[in-house]
């Protein structure tokens, strides 16, 4: 037990908790839990499936539409309709990436290995953003092309070269990123899985249509900038009157996740882990 009090020869001189290394670590972490492939699969299947169903349904009931509705029919937008549900899958994954650290207690190991918490949050955010964007793009292209045969019956199929169509598809892929980051930011602020998922579902799916009930001009202003109301404009190819333009909408959606993420970054440093 009594040994000379001399430090052991130090190994691993090049070891550093650099951003690059923390990104590698977070990449390993995100792919080593089952919830990641499952939620991504749900994102793809739900988005493509519902987009196809919506296109099938709308295209076969065109005769029930009024002439006015038919004139403003947005085939591309309908072909991406499944994102209404798909956004929730990616938002849930965004929540889980942060909150499971806290619910499992794994955050102690994480912050002991890398005490620079902002670096951890940044690395997690980068890894998740890359995955959400890549899978988001695949999903929206798949949904678009899977839906077109149903419109082709009515000679209404949209083409990638048509005005706004490519922007709508790529923009919708970016919308997957934005809704995922929204969940991620809520997770960083709320830290509890159930609370953050509830907040994400409420703010992305439940509350947006309700804001339509708000009276007056200010009510309409809130409606058009509210999360998915604003963000979904990126999928439109027919400009809706009194709505934000596609990129205005996308910008508003971005503000919706950047602001809570800044708050989350502030809190992650201040709070006890």
């Amino acid at each position, binding site marked *: 037990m009594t040994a000379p009090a001399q*430090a052991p020869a130090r190994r691993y001189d090049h*070891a550093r908790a650099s951003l690059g290394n923390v990104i590698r*670590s977070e990449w*390993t*972490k995100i792919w080593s839990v089952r919830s990641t492939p499952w939620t991504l699969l749900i994102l793809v299947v739900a988005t493509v499936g519902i987009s196809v169903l919506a296109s099938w349904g709308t295209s076969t009931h065109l005769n029930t539409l009024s002439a006015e509705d038919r004139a403003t029919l947005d085939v591309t937008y309908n072909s991406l309709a499944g994102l209404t549900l798909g956004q929730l899958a990616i938002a849930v994954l965004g929540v889980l990436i942060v909150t*499971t650290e806290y619910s499992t*207690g794994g955050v102690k190991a994480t912050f002991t290995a890398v*005490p620079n918490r902002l670096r951890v949050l940044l690395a997690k955010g980068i890894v998740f953003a890359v995955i959400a964007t890549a899978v988001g793009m695949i999903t929206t292209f798949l949904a678009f092309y899977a839906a077109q045969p149903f419109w082709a019956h009515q000679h209404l199929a949209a083409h990638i070269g048509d005005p706004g169509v490519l922007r709508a598809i790529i923009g919708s892929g970016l919308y997957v990123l934005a809704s995922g980051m929204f969940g991620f930011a809520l997770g960083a602020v709320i830290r509890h899985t159930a609370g953050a998922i509830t907040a994400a579902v409420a703010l992305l799916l439940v509350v947006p249509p309700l804001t339509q009930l708000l009276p007056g001009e200010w009510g309409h202003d809130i409606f058009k900038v509210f999360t998915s109301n604003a963000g979904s404009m990126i999928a439109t190819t027919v400009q809706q009157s009194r709505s934000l333009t596609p990129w205005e909408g996308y910008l508003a959606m971005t503000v919706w996740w950047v602001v809570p993420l800044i708050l989350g970054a502030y809190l992650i440093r201040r709070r*006890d882990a």
Partner: protein
Amino acid sequence: MIEARGLTKRFGDKVAVDDLSFVVEPGIVTGFLGPNGAGKSTTMRLILGLDHPTRGQALVNGHPYATAKAPMREVGALLDAKDVHGGRTARAHLKSLAQSNGLPGRRVDEVLDLVGMREVADKRIKGFSLGMSQRIGIAAAMLGDPQILMFDEPVNGLDPEGILWIRGFMQHEAANGRTVFVSSHLMSEMALTAEHLIVIGRGKLLADTSVTEFIAQNSVGGVRVRTPQIEAMRDAFGRAGVKVTDVDKFLQVEGMTTDEVGDLAAANHITIHELFTQHSSLEEAFMEMTRDSVEYHAQVGDVAALDPAAMVGGTK
């Protein structure tokens, strides 16, 4: 080396760690002893920067832990073995930690071998027993070949084999020159493992001393005698000039052997019914020291507090 300087942590009105100052030296196992709720875990969390101190600071190798460039080379810590995402395999868990500090991938297999867990490396952690999780936690702590090891109650819930393994492991690593800081609420455990002791109660420092010194200072013994002629015996002791205390139905004296007490009784024609040497154990010494600072008294503890003899005399 770990150094606490006036370390204080409040949670609302409650002071969990109260102006704690100590130094943990390399080359020996330092035991961090205190009853449950004394603030041991909080102190360790403060050292690692997981909690922010209300006042004071903790230094690791002379600087705050959060400023370490390669944190895993400096400290390997195991706070709670179950604090890990159970959905990951042991290998993925260790790999992600190694990557975060840019440690080589082969290090994962090395530490798995070190704790004898290579075979179950590709199984999900949630199926592991506490003992297995404990070993994975130790493997994680060893990844960066750190100068400092810090374990919070590592023997809790382990079987005897696991306890022996951890004890041996800590002593071996200390002998290799590492700083080993280990907490426990059991004095008996520390007496076997540690060379130096830091004792706290209700967040306050109660002792910072070597185990040998602690034993010498705190284990008091005495001779106990039971007799139907208790007053005569007391007078006899009084005439002999020794200090007598009443412990339950016994008289206890210090500085006399059982032979001397027997002779004294015979010389005074006193009948003795029982005569023996009473050693207070280390555990009792520790309980005595921390009695006022125990956070939550159990019922047994409450009885003992009312009637110290019930416990000291009754358990031995």
